[in-house]
């Protein structure tokens, strides 16, 4: 169903970053994902099933370490020698998306002999059917929006005749961008000597897998470590018939074969929001259908409210909230697309919506079928591969599967391209002998609407919940883009930045930005979280003037860190 259930941080277990022994890992690790929707990918609820019963089996299974390995890959290049000649590869990655690519590059740097298996096209969802082509469409929509805004143009003293667009030209731009990034990705791996093996990868047993087109022609290889990075596909809830023409998913929408006069977007997460930006800029009217009671449920409520005022209310958009699309019938026999709505809670019928097209943006489902997980006794949870905080795969008995990792959308921890890549790098660090645990709270997310939304860390309600549990006080400060010189010069004063922090320690808990180039501005905050930099230190960092980054500068400077390690001065009350 299209309700990605927003999980709040129910167990704020700080993830240990220092060295942890396997024994420590055997202790209760309750992996609690935050409710996040990323890169247009709505996070399916990942039930925080406790893995605390897991016990780490450090003992390798004796099987498959026999000498029956065959050298099959003719095109072996010098990307490191397979260790001790026991395996064909040190590392085999299944899936050449952004996660697999990031892992492969880092593996080569670490001297591992690496192969990557891809059954479709290099680049995965992000490059071919996700972030990349959608950014091309959004680049177009941003300009259209600006050119169509007569008032905005006039305030610059510019006069622009009626702006129009050529649909094919827009679609070509998106497609060309995807091809270019795809070939860049392919070339970067080839240049480093990563073997790109074509076909579907299937795990046969520990450290052993096959790839190929299926059937007997498959090739069996062995690897010291295996990473599953098979990603996800658009999630289509039951009752919805996708015909690829009038009822579409993001895969179809990105080809922009059709700009309907009126489109319903099911789901108001990142994908839905970004597409609403594209479609309204190209002249469509949009109806959102959201299962939760408010639009943009994944965002910090305050940011969501402001974003709704800017991104939804003034545009040709209306919405139905608290309803499921129980049935969607594509346009046929001279009828429009018919969407039947039911109340999300009571399941009572709530009428129908008739539109020219419907975009299903209810989230992403992991693509983990046919991986051969049954061969190693791993059971997926709603399709997601269960992993611990080090991305080690957990089997159905709660034990870690040795030498098998899963990163990216397939594990569902954080469905973001750059999170997958970061997880891949973390895994490579581990297999090359250095323990590493990724701090997911330092991974930023962005929504590329106009203006953009970005965030890192906790939302205000999550922070308050954590604060209540751990007994500290949450402080909040905000700055407006209206006070920023560069933003005003661009006539884009709409927007705020919000900092959620601990006044006692100066620790940043979360930063949320809505405004011009928010997606580029977030990294100062995400790096600070990753490095553990405190606000009192950041206050002394210098920002070029006049730049949008001063919005953050001002944000940090406006934060009040009450105490420090020094003796606090007496405060007049």
């Amino acid at each position, binding site marked *: 169903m299209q309700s990605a259930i927003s999980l709040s941080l129910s167990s704020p277990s700080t993830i240990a970053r220092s060295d942890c022994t396997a024994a420590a890992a055997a202790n209760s690790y309750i992996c609690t994902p935050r409710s996040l929707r990323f890169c247009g990918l709505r996070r399916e609820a990942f039930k925080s099933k406790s893995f605390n019963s897991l016990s780490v089996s450090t003992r390798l299974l004796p099987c498959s370490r026999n000498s029956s390995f065959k050298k099959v890959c003719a095109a072996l290049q010098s990307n490191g020698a397979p260790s001790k000649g026991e395996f064909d590869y040190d590392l085999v990655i299944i899936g050449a998306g952004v996660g697999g690519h990031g892992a492969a590059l880092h593996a080569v740097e670490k001297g591992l002999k690496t192969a990557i298996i891809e059954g479709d096209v290099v680049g995965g969802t992000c490059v071919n059917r996700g972030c990349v082509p959608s950014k091309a469409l959004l680049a177009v929509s941003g300009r259209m929006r600006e050119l169509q805004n*007569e008032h905005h143009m*006039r305030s610059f003293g510019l*006069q622009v005749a*009626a702006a*129009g*667009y*050529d649909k094919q030209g827009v679609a070509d731009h998106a497609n060309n961008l995807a091809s270019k990034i795809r070939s860049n990705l392919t070339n970067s791996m080839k240049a480093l000597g990563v073997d790109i093996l074509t076909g579907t990868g299937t795990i046969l047993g520990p450290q052993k897998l096959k790839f190929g087109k299926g059937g007997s022609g498959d090739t069996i290889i062995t690897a010291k470590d295996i990473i599953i990075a098979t990603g996800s596909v658009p999630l289509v809830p039951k009752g919805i018939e996708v015909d690829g023409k009038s009822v579409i998913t993001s895969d179809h929408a990105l080809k922009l074969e059709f700009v309907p*006069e*009126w489109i319903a977007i099911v789901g108001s997460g990142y994908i839905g929001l970004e597409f609403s930006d594209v479609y309204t800029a190209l002249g469509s*009217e*949009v*109806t959102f259908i959201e299962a939760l009671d408010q639009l943009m449920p994944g965002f910090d409520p305050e940011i969501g409210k402001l974003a709704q*005022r800017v991104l939804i*209310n*003034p545009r*040709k*958009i*209306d919405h139905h909230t608290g309803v499921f699309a129980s049935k969607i019938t594509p346009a046929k026999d001279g*009828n*429009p697309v018919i969407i039947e709505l039911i109340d999300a809670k009571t399941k009572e019928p709530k009428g129908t919506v*008739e539109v*020219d097209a419907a975009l299903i943006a209810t989230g992403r489902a992991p693509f983990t079928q046919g991986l051969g997980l049954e061969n190693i006794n791993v059971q997926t949870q709603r399709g997601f591969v269960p992993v611990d905080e080090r991305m080690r795969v957990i089997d159905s008995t709660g034990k870690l599967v040795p030498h098998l990792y899963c990163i990216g959308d397939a594990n569902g921890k954080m469905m973001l391209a750059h999170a997958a890549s970061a997880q891949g790098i973390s895994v490579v660090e581990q297999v090359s002998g250095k323990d590493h645990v990724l701090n997911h709270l330092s991974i930023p997310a962005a929504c590329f609407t106009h203006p953009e939304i970005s965030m890192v860390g906790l939302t205000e309600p999550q922070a308050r919940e954590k604060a209540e549990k751990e007994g500290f006080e949450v402080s909040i*400060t*905000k*700055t*407006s883009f*209206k006070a920023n010189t560069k933003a005003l010069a661009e006539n884009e004063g709409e927007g*705020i930045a919000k900092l959620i922090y601990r006044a006692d320690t100066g620790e940043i808990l979360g930063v949320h930005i809505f405004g011009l180039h928010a997606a580029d501005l977030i990294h100062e905050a995400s790096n600070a979280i990753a490095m553990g930099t405190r606000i009192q230190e950041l206050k002394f960092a210098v920002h070029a003037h006049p730049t949008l980054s001063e919005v953050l500068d001002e944000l940090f400077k406006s934060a009040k860190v009450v105490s420090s390690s020094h003796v606090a001065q007496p405060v007049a009350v």
Partner: protein
Amino acid sequence: MASLLQSRTPSLSFSSSLCSTPVIRPSVSFLKPRSGPRIPVVRAKIREIFMPALSSTMTEGKIVSWIKSEGDVLSKGESVVVVESDKADMDVETFYDGILAAIVINEGETAPVGAAIGILAETEGEIAEAKAKATSQFSSAPAPSAPKVEESSPAPKVDAPSPPVDAAPAPSTPGKVVATPYAKKLAKQYKVDIGKLVGTGPFGRITPEDVEKAAGITPAPKSNVAAPAAPVASSAPASVPSKAPSNFPEIPGSTVVPFTTMQAAVTKNMLESLSVPTFRVGYPIATDALDALYEKVKPKGVTMTALLAKAAAVALAQHPVVNATCKDGKSFTYNSNINIAVAVAINGGLITPVLQDADKLDLYLLSQKWKELVEKARAKQLQPREYNSGTFTLSNLGMFGVDRFDAILPPGQGAIMAVGASKPTVLADKDGFFSIKNKMLVNVTADHRIIYGADLAAFLQTFSKIIENPESLTM
């Protein structure tokens, strides 16, 4: 304005007692934590929500958006409306529990500080009463809805229900209303009852155009008016309002750009002009003397527009019939003032600022006045009487090198003069001598019901004499 408004609503006990302390207060928590003084509880059932003073310099505020809709239950501290002051947009919270019974000032409209922008009822039973108050207040005092005319658009603000649609095709599914998101927004904005509309869009849905039509934004031409000859397609690819949806062949790659309010107003006027029987008379005029005079007075800030307007006004004073109007098709209406409207192209639109009493003001005052009007027009600050009180229109395309053209008579006026460029021309005089003189062609379009050929010719002769001997203009 504020006091006026309050005196009109004495029945609402709150309006006077609370004007110093607004019912709602701004809460901009990032500027200041909430710590406003509590307002003592007053037993009033229906309260007005006032335009709050969000800054010390704020005199009026624009409603950016209503966060709550009519009928929503509000609880104390909830944000109700977003107000744009001279400084920033701010969420405004209600200080009372209740039900938002009526919105008085709609999104995008402006109200002075202290004016009622909405009505809050305490219980559901009082909603009707509150609504009635809001309507009576609203209809008896339309001024507060738009105390400041920001847009100089003559488009009517329609709050009356849509005109009856004749010969409506039966909706495909009776009782079910399908309207696009933008159509719903427009209907709310123009207070059009969407249930009464008949959709013309695909599958009988109500489109934004249907709502605009009902609101009178792009009205269909009257039935007694012949449908306009298809306007030049190349220059007008945008939708042209016509009675029946015209079946122009679909040209691939074309773009439809809806009219702005100003463009819609122009269209309305142009279609109305088709009901007036007009004719045209042209006249060549030597301009050497005028050009010489212009060179002389230019440093004093006199513009060619002022010179021509003055000359036309002086000529009109001698030919009052050309300054007259035919209002009902049965009589002459002689205007006591000579107000020269001058057509000005402005950002994809057209506006006609009016030089009032152009015959009486001297050239320098007239030039100064003109400068002010143009600045106001650019800033969209013209008051209605500054663009719709003309009795005669002047349109000059001479600066583009146009030698002659034909103007369309605006409704409500008797004549319009189209002025071409002044160009050196070889002339032969009655003695057979050739000379080269600057000459311009003027072409007057007039309403033949009141102005006949001889009237116009006589007027043009006078005008030509004035232009050829322009010294009198400086007096």
